């Protein structure tokens, strides 16, 4: 092994990168949500295009094609989410009078304008979600290649999104620096806290739970809808209880149209929305609203 392997240039107090400073959760400045509720739930709905011929660079996106080309099976199961599943989610949101943040691949915006119209007309937020599931941001891209990827993604939208979710939530060490330059205000890839974190590049990192994502629990880990729902309810209950010590809390939750949008699963989303609406200590906010309230209170500068 090369000598450098046993040298530790970043070994010292705090993080090993410059995006934000090390800070224990007890050291934050509290946030108070404007409506006085204790917990803000933010619903993130990814709308993804999975090409039939993924390059798999630098890795295959979760949910990418599995069997040899042409893998019509996985292509059409994913496509179900954009055609059918998302409309079940939209209906559930409308009935509960809840606004959500739709994280949209540029390719989806380009291909399916009626879907974008349906989301906008219902008053939801649209954030950018990279170009497609096969356009992963990673260290192997040059700064100009990655910048071009972001520019092309944003060009797919008629009004420029202010929020960003990376495909597979993967980044290069340059991504955060490039987002602000492209006019983006907040990013949902990182989840090192229960509150937003401001970083040196002036982008807000808004936490987004991997562990409570429907894709993780219902698809990857094959747990039941009952269990997913109960775990979210338990999480909300705990966050409510921490409000006394830590002020307003938040929970970012992913709803995947081809997972939760299945006919036999949609009841669980309806139940979740009813649970949130019935609880006076909890409300839903879009990622953009969370960012606005966070920035206006200047709660956790880096």
């Amino acid at each position, binding site marked *: 092994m090369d000598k450098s392997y046993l040298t530790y240039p970043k070994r010292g107090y705090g993080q090993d990168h410059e995006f934000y400073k090390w800070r224990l959760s007890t050291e934050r400045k509290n946030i108070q949500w404007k409506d006085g509720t204790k917990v803000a739930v933010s619903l993130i709905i990814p709308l993804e295009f999975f*090409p*039939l*011929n993924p390059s798999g660079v630098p890795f295959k996106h979760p949910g990418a094609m599995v*069997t*040899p*080309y*042409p893998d*019509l*099976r996985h*292509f*059409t*199961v994913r*496509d*179900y989410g*954009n*055609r*059918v599943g998302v*409309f*079940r989610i*939209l*209906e559930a949101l409308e009935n509960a009078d809840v606004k959500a943040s739709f994280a949209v691949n540029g390719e989806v915006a380009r*291909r*399916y*304008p*009626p*879907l974008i119209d*349906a989301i906008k007309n219902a008053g939801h937020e649209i954030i950018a979600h990279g170009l497609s599931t*096969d356009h992963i941001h990673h260290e192997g891209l040059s700064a100009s290649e990655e910048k071009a990827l972001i520019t092309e993604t944003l060009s797919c939208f008629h009004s420029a999104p202010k929020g960003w979710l990376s495909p597979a939530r993967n980044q290069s060490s340059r991504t955060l620096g490039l987002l602000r330059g492209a006019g983006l205000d907040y990013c949902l890839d990182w989840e090192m806290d229960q509150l937003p974190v401001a970083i040196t590049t002036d982008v807000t990192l808004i936490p987004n739970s991997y562990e409570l994502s429907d894709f993780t629990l219902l698809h990857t880990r*094959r747990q*039941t809808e009952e269990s997913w729902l109960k775990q979210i309810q338990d999480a909300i209950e705990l966050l409510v209880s921490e409000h006394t010590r830590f002020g307003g809390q938040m929970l970012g939750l992913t709803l995947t149209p081809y997972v939760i949008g*299945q*006919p*036999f*699963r*949609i*009841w669980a989303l309806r139940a979740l929305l009813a649970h949130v609406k019935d609880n006076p200590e909890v409300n839903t906010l879009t990622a953009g609203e969370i960012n606005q309230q966070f920035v206006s209170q200047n709660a956790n500068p880096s």
Partner: protein
Amino acid sequence: MKADPNLYDYWPYANRPKITWPGGKKLAFWIAPNIEFYEFMPPGNPQRSPWPNAVPNVQQYSQRDFGNRVGHLRLMELLDRHKLRGSVSLNVALCDHHPEIVEDCARRDWEFFSHGIYNTRYSYGLSPDQEQAVLDDSIRSVEAATGQRIRGYLAPALTHTEATLDLIAENDFWYSCDLFQDDQPQPLKTKTGKLVSMPYSLEVNDVITYSVMGMDPDRYADILKRHFDQLLLEGERSGTVMCIPLHAYLVSQPNRIKMFEQALAHITAHRDDVWFATGREIAKHFIDNYWDSSLDDIKARGVATGGTGFSHG
């Protein structure tokens, strides 16, 4: 290799023209027992091994043989009790290996469609002529065994070529079970013919629920009921389709069949609202009544891309 198969146009589920099933029914229900033959010593395919570990795979082979020896009969008797006819997804070589089973289904006036020759022979790497030979064999074998002209196709082990759907349309098939993008039938963009994409569902398929997702029988029965209830609710706006694809080596196991029967009892208790049909009957009703209006509506949405499958306009 194409990024997008272009087999159908984008068609948002909201505000589609209303489909009504015969008798004013809201949901068309069909049940598709897969009657399959997995070879003991299949040849290899360069793109995919016929069994997940080694050949022969005794445990997996014999479990599927249990389906043929014990399971299908158990399932047939269950469907009889609920006055349901199956639409058989058939590996057509089974007509030669186990003709007794095919006769039992034919006597019940069940429908047959092709699921390839064997589930251990994949479409990968077949030339259009070779794939045509599989279709010829399928049509001929089922006709010889039952007198039925098959109208549906589910590619063996869900393996395809770029030519598959054009070929089956050219051979006057009416529906494909290979695409899972929707809960309603819809037109496919084949070069000739009128080929319907028929909802067949992987999500409630017992291979997915039991073998892949590891569900227990109570949970399987629960999701079948919920799936049905939701699609029936939506069928009020525009007729939906629910299919339960089954494999007797899984669903007919002694520990599982009772809970499956409970789900079926729930579904068949809604006879006023549900059209109990076969795949062919649903495809025909769609083609005769909704083919043109569907295409018109898709076009009106302004995002039709033209062209045909794997060939962009």
